[in-house]
Structure formats: structure tokens, C-alpha cells
């Protein structure tokens, strides 16, 4: 009887394992592990949440300012949604959305030239002063003031030609033009007028006087957290503001620990000193496979709108790169599968285009990256670059001009030199000489701004609206933007100008699909791989949402994280079986 029960149990266990395996295979998206608990949303029943808990996050370096008007680095942006409330936010899909905790209503006129925002009543700053329409108008004025170095906040806000307070709750925006992007233009940060107005009389820059610096480092915000400690070079402590009128965040305290070194940060994670950190590809693939890591947390891989690319100076002095056939040939000679495997540990995916699929009408399975050395050789032959019998390199015009270029790399990158090595080896087979030049970041940028380069290896993160890409591809951006490669295509320019005015999303998607096709045909940039978000979370962390900019830079971000009141035992499956997952 006993042995029959045992056999039955054993059969059931086998069936269970087979069932799980079938489910995994059937899903087609790889393992769905127990790490899914990280994404468990904040429960409605607050008694399940440990509301006195402290979250410990890793900071790579200190922020430059807590003043949202002056914020410009990714580190600064980590604090934005925690310290400040905004009427509009980027949700986890990086879509523009209304923050219901702040906004009563928002209406845009039919001609897209005017919008009216009505704030919720009872909004307050952390010093209990009411947050009103006057604060919004003041912030808009500050952002557009030439004396204020509002590097990021100014972008887009310039489209608002008039911002006026109709009454303490109601703000009216008038736009310069009827653009599809006008909704982004009103998404600017709000600072307290009663704090900054007196300071601005003596310091209109908002950052030169001691009083301004103090106000920027110990801000009176409107968000659910306030700064309670800043130990220079060590940590920043945010404490929950209990007077916050919106949804109460779960963690009572968030401690941001400054740990500049990646390896030290991983050790701190494994020691339980921090609850989250971003992982380098090597760390994700190799350093986090042990029991020590599995005991502490899980690793997550999510989609990110970041593409690695090589920019070719199409308008430079090198005739070799100004020929589209040559650039196409160079693109064909990039062994992307090998790069993905050798350099990025198989974690990065194929780069399928310049825009995320949701922006265009592109077929999601369409492949844009082919490795074809023979095809590349043919294209170079057609372009007049023939292989010399003497040395094996390609030349044009009877040996006067050699096929080759210098690829600029940013110093400090672990992966760029390895990508370059793979590319160099394949180009050598093709008869094209590639040399590399490693430059410090500021020098790299300086060369790019001055268009003094042959080619450069870099990464580009697509913005939440496809129009942001005009900064890379529009001819206006050659002298005043990031179109360092000097790409000029009047058709692309016209399409960008049409796309920003088209308010029908379906028609817009068609326009950007066309732009994408034109750019991929002209190949001023060769896209290499798409980088994912790689992150580690402690077992107790819940409520994470992964946006295409990672888990920190979208709403609600850390605001939505929580930890259970009763610690839950770590699943054995988590420890040994499937310690990482792809984000749902």
C-alpha cells in the first residue's frame, strides 16, 4: 500500500515536471521563473506591506542637483519622481500619461494649439504651502530663462509660447505650432515659486549663490519623499513624507549608497548591503551564477530602447565613407551574431531598426542585419575599390586611395574594443583597413561635435517619441544636434517635419516607418545590437516595473516597489534552478 502510494507520488512528480517543461517550451519566451515575484504589484491590502521598511539602492555617483529644472544626468533623474510630482509622467511603456494624483483634468483644443490643465485641490509642497498654477507658470518662466542652465527641461518646453494661471487651479498653455508632440511640451518639472522666487532676485541662474545651492540640495519638493541626509560621497537618505496627498509609497526610507565600482557594488549586493543594482553583461552572464548571489536575489533581463551603432562620417574628408555602397558593404561585414555571443554573452538581441516597433508599422520579425562578406566584397568592387595583388588591401584610382578608416572608441568601455576586434578581423578579410583610436569621453564628444572623425562607435537610446530621433537624422541637427555624421536627406527631413505635425497615430507610424527604411537604405549608421536592461533585485523587493529605460526612470518606478510584512522563504527553485528571468 505504502509502496503504491510512493509510486503514485513519484508519477505525479514526474508529470508535474513534464508539465512545467512543456509549459516553458510552449511559451516560446524562455524560462518563466519564480523570479516573477519581483514584478508582483503593490497589493491593495496594505497590511501585507512592510511600511516601515528601508530600501537600499545603489548609486554609481552623486547627483548634480535635486532641482528638477537643472537635472540632466541619469543619476539626477533617479530622484525626479521620488522628490517631485508632475502633472504628466512617462509610464512603464514610456507613454505620456496624466498623473491622476496631481491632475483633475487636462484638455487639448481640437486644433492642438491650446491646452488647459486643472490641478487637483489640496496639493501641497513639503513645507505645507499650497501647490498652485502660479508654481507651474513660474517654473515655465525659469526653464525658458536664458540665465538658467535648464539643459534637459528646456527641451520641448520651448514649444509653449504662453503659460498663464487662469486661477490657482487652472493653467492655460498656448503652443507655437499645432504639433503631435505638444503633449510632451507641457511635461516640464515644477519647482516651488515661494522658495525660488526670492532666491532668483539675487541669483537668476538658480545655482550660483550659496542659498540656491542649499535649496537645490535640500529641496522642498512635492513628491512622496524628501531628502533627510546627504553624506557626501557616501549616501543620500530619502524619508517618506507622511503629508503626501497621493498614493502612499511602501518604503519608509530609501537609502542610496554611493558605490562607484561595479565589482564592489556586486559584492555589496551579495552581502545584503543593497537591494538593487544594474549589472554589466559579464556580471549578468558569469559573476551572478553562484549560490551566494542566488541566496540574495534574482537577475532580470528586460527590453531597452538602446542600440549600439557605428556612425560613418558621410560628409567628411574621406571619400571612402561618403559612398553608400561602401557603407552598405561595411554594414554587411559586421558579424553581429559573433559580437552578440563573444562580447555580450548572448544577452543582447538583434538590432532590428532605429525605432521601437510600437513607433512604426515595421514587421517585428524583419531582419535588418545580415552578415555577408561575399556580398560586401561585391559592393566594394562595384564602387571601384579593388583588391591589390601586392598587399591584399583595397585601393581606388590605381592605388592612390586606400580603403580604410579610423574608428573612434570611448575610453573605459569594456565592450567597444572587443567589438572593434571582431570587426577589424572581418574587414581585413575584405581588404579594408580599420584602425581604432580610444578617446576620453569629453575628447570623443569634442571630435564628434566638430565632425572630426571617420567613424565612431556609440549607443543611442530612443526617446519616448519618435520625433526625438530628428536630433540624430535631420539635417538641422548637423550643426545644432547630434547628427555628427553629417547625414543629409531632404526626404527624411520632410518626413520628420510631417511626422511631428501628424496627429493620427497610425499615419504617424507609417511616416516613421518610411524614415526608418530610408535611413537603413542610406546607412549613415550601422546598427549593431540592441542592449537589454540587466538588473539584480534582492529577494524581498516587489512591485518592479521594467520600462525601456530600466526600472528607475519611468512612473511609478521605485514609488511602486514594496516588501512583504512577513518575510517569505526563498524558493529552492530560485536558489538552484532558474535564477534569472526575462521581464514579462
Amino acid at each position: 500500500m505504502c509502496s503504491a502510494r510512493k509510486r503514485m507520488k513519484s508519477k505525479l512528480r514526474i508529470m508535474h515536471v513534464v508539465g512545467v517543461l512543456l509549459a516553458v517550451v510552449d511559451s516560446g519566451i524562455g524560462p518563466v521563473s519564480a523570479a516573477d515575484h519581483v514584478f508582483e504589484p503593490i497589493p491593495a491590502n496594505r497590511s501585507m506591506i512592510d511600511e516601515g521598511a528601508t530600501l537600499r539602492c545603489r548609486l554609481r555617483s552623486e547627483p548634480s542637483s535635486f532641482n528638477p529644472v537643472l537635472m540632466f544626468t541619469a543619476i539626477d533623474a533617479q530622484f525626479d519622481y521620488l522628490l517631485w510630482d508632475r502633472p504628466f509622467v512617462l509610464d512603464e511603456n514610456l507613454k505620456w500619461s496624466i498623473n491622476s494624483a496631481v491632475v483633475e483634468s487636462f484638455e487639448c483644443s481640437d486644433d492642438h494649439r491650446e491646452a488647459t490643465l486643472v490641478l487637483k485641490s489640496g496639493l501641497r509642497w513639503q513645507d505645507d504651502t499650497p501647490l498652485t498654477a502660479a508654481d507651474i507658470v513660474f517654473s515655465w518662466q525659469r526653464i525658458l530663462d536664458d540665465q538658467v542652465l535648464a539643459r534637459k527641461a528646456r527641451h520641448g518646453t520651448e514649444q509653449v509660447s504662453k503659460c498663464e494661471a487662469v486661477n490657482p487651479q487652472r493653467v492655460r498653455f498656448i503652443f507655437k505650432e499645432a504639433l503631435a508632440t505638444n503633449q510632451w511640451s507641457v511635461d516640464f518639472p515644477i519647482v516651488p515659486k515661494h522658495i525660488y522666487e526670492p532666491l532668483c532676485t539675487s541669483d537668476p541662474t538658480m545655482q550660483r549663490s550659496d542659498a540656491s545651492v542649499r535649496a537645490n540640495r535640500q529641496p522642498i519638493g512635492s513628491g512622496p519623499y524628501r531628502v533627510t541626509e546627504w553624506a557626501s560621497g557616501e549616501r543620500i537618505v530619502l524619508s517618506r513624507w507622511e503629508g503626501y496627498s497621493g498614493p502612499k509609497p511602501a518604503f519608509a526610507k530609501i537609502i542610496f549608497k554611493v558605490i562607484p565600482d561595479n565589482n564592489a557594488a556586486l559584492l555589496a549586493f551579495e552581502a545584503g548591503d543593497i537591494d538593487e543594482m544594474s549589472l554589466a553583461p559579464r556580471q549578468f552572464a558569469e559573476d551572478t551564477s553562484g549560490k551566494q548571489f542566488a541566496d540574495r536575489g534574482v537577475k532580470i533581463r528586460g527590453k531597452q530602447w538602446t542600440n549600439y551603432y557605428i556612425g560613418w562620417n558621410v560628409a567628411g574628408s574621406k571619400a571612402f565613407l561618403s559612398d553608400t555602397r561602401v557603407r552598405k558593404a561595411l554594414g554587411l561585414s559586421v558579424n553581429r551574431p559573433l559580437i552578440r555571443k563573444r562580447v555580450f554573452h548572448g544577452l543582447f538581441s538583434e538590432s532590428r531598426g532605429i525605432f521601437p516597433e510600437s513607433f512604426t508599422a515595421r514587421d517585428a520579425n524583419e531582419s535588418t542585419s545580415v552578415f555577408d562578406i561575399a556580398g560586401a566584397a561585391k559592393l566594394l568592387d562595384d564602387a571601384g575599390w579593388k583588391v591589390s595583388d601586392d598587399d591584399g588591401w583595397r585601393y581606388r584610382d590605381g592605388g592612390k586611395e586606400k580603403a580604410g578608416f579610423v574608428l573612434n572608441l570611448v575610453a573605459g568601455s569594456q565592450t567597444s574594443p572587443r567589438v572593434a576586434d571582431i570587426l577589424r578581423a572581418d574587414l581585413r578579410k575584405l581588404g579594408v583597413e580599420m584602425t581604432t583610436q580610444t578617446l576620453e569621453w569629453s575628447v570623443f564628444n569634442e571630435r564628434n561635435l566638430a565632425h572630426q572623425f571617420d567613424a565612431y562607435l556609440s549607443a543611442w537610446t530612443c526617446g519616448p517619441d519618435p520625433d526625438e530621433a530628428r536630433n540624430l537624422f535631420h539635417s538641422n541637427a548637423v550643426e545644432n544636434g547630434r547628427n555628427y555624421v553629417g547625414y543629409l536627406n531632404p526626404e527624411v527631413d520632410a518626413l520628420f517635419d510631417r511626422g511631428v505635425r501628424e496627429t493620427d497615430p497610425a499615419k504617424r507610424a507609417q511616416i516613421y516607418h518610411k524614415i526608418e527604411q530610408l535611413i537603413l537604405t542610406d546607412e549613415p549608421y550601422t546598427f549593431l545590437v540592441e542592449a537589454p536592461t540587466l538588473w539584480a533585485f534582492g529577494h524581498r523587493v516587489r512591485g518592479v516595473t521594467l520600462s525601456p529605460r530600466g526600472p528607475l526612470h519611468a512612473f511609478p518606478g521605485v514609488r511602486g516597489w514594496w516588501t512583504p510584512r512577513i518575510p517569505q522563504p526563498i524558493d529552492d527553485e530560485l536558489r538552484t534552478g532558474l535564477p534569472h528571468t526575462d521581464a514579462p
Partner: protein
Amino acid sequence: MTSCGLDCRTPTPHDNPLQHRQNGVWHYLLKRILLTIPTFVGIVLLTFVVIHLAPGSPATGTVGGFGESGVSAANHDRLREHFELDAPVTKRFGRWIMRVACFDFGQSFADGQPVSKRIIERVYPTLILTFSIIVIALLIVIPVAAYAALNAGGFVDKVILGACVGLYAIPPYVFGMLLILVVGVALDWFPFSGLTSEDHAQMNGWQRLVDLINHSVLIGACILYPLVAYLVPFVRATMLAVLKEDFVRAAFARGLSRRRVIFRHVLPNTLRPLLTVMGLIVPAVLGGSVVLEVMFSWPGMGRLLYESILQRDYPVIMGMTVLSAVIVLGVTLIVDVLYALADPRVRYA
């Protein structure tokens, strides 16, 4: 004798030895200070010129920032204007000197804070750590080296020398990583990140001190061991040389006790060259702690300088240069004066 009856001959050192000794020291001190001034100006000028003429700038280093927006030539020009980089280098140096003359080092490009405040926040962890480690090193080095020298050729001496050579060969960052892995993570004996605990502000005075010491142990060990490994053989060799001097043999011959000879005659003569070495070691320790400060997330001067260089934060780099120059030149001056006090031959040279 002269006709007026007064003694007008040139005084000799034998007339008033004490006064002459004091005059000699003051004269030597003045000479050293005067030599320090051009050295200081040279260091500052050279650093200013090098960082301002090097390719790249804070404007190109920070242009763009986060995400897709903000990269534009107009923004770049605004940044150059904001950082006052649009003026010629000579004019910028003139402005900087005028400010420094009023003890105003300007504002950090990175976060807008006054440079002096940023530096002061970071100076004390490094200085306290460095000087504590040097004192601890001396407390270890002198007895160990003395023991090794007095038992030269013996088993213990060989072990000490072997250990020193072995330890000196290990790079501090390797040793540091090992300490973090074993002592910090596996054994969890000491914290390996930062200067203080999260609840440092809530602690009483004694607890704060213990907390600071706890956080300093691992990084301190990484600075300490190469120092000890370098100094022990040096002091041992010096002591061996002193032990062979005639005056030591004479002292033994006079029947003085071994203890008296060593403490009264051998040690003071051994430590004199150590003074000179210490003058060289302080800057080396200050400069060499950059990697360790980054590794241990130690909020010290080295890390500040490292971050400032990466960010091209010129005002902070210059402020750190001034401070480092003052510390190094000051320590060198103090060592020279102490040496001159201890050895009259130096000040008469």
C-alpha cells in the same frame, strides 16, 4: 682689540652656541620656505595650463546628459559661457588667482557647491586615515625592524624579510578585493563600503568612533601593509649600518648596557633617515589611495580627485591641486626642519 676698546671680531659658533643654533634653524627655515613658494606656484601654474589646454572640456564632457535630448551646439556654447571657458587661458588663470587670493576656490562644475566645501567634506577621511596608518605603521615598523636587525641572519629575520618582500609584491587592489571577499562578505567581520554606517547620526560619540574605526579597518589594512613591507627592510638595513658604526662599538666598549646603547645611540641615528623617507611616503600614500578609495567607496580626497578629473571639474581639480601641494610641501618642509634640528650638518651645508 680695537681702539674703541670693544671686541669687534666676528663671532664664532663657540661664542653663544645656543643662540647660533637658533639663528641657524631660523635661517634654514626661511631658506626652505622661500624655496617652497616657487615650487608651489610652479605646480599650480603647470596644472592649470595642462588641464585647460588638454583636448576636451567640461562643456563637451557634460553635453547631452541623460536620454535623447539636449545635445546641441547651442547648449554646448551656453555651457562654455556658464563655465567661463570662452575666455583665453591667461584671463581664466588671472580670474582664478584673484579668487584664490580671497580664499574663494569657485564653484564645482559638477554640482554647483563651493569647491572649499566639497574639499573639506572629503579631506578629513583621507587625512585621518593616512596619518593614522602612518602612525600605526611606525609603531609596527620600528620594533619589528629593530628585532630583525638585532637578530640579523636568524630565522625570524629571514621570515620577516621574506614576508615583507612577499607582501610588497601584492598590489593593494588585489589584496583589497581579497579582504572584501573574505573578511567583508564571507566572514562579515567588517564593513567594506563607505566611511560610516546608515545610523551613524543616531550614535553617541563612542559608538561613532567605533563605527569609524570599523569602516577604516579594511581600507586601512590595504594602505598599511605595503607601507610596513617597504619600511621594515629599510629601517632594518639602516639599523644594521648604525650598529657597525665606531661610536656604537665604543659605547659597548665603555661598558654601557645593550638596552642603553640601542635606545640612546642606535635608534636615534636609525630614525633620522626614516624622517626623510616619511617626507616622500606621505605624498605617495595620499596619491596611491585613489584606487582603494574607489574600491571601498571611501569618500576621500583621492576619489574626489578621480571623479573631478573624469568630469573635467576644473575648479575642484585646481582646489585639490592647491591642497595637495600645500600638504606635500608642508610635510616636506616639516621633515626638512626636523632633520635640520636633529642634524646640524644639514643646516650648515
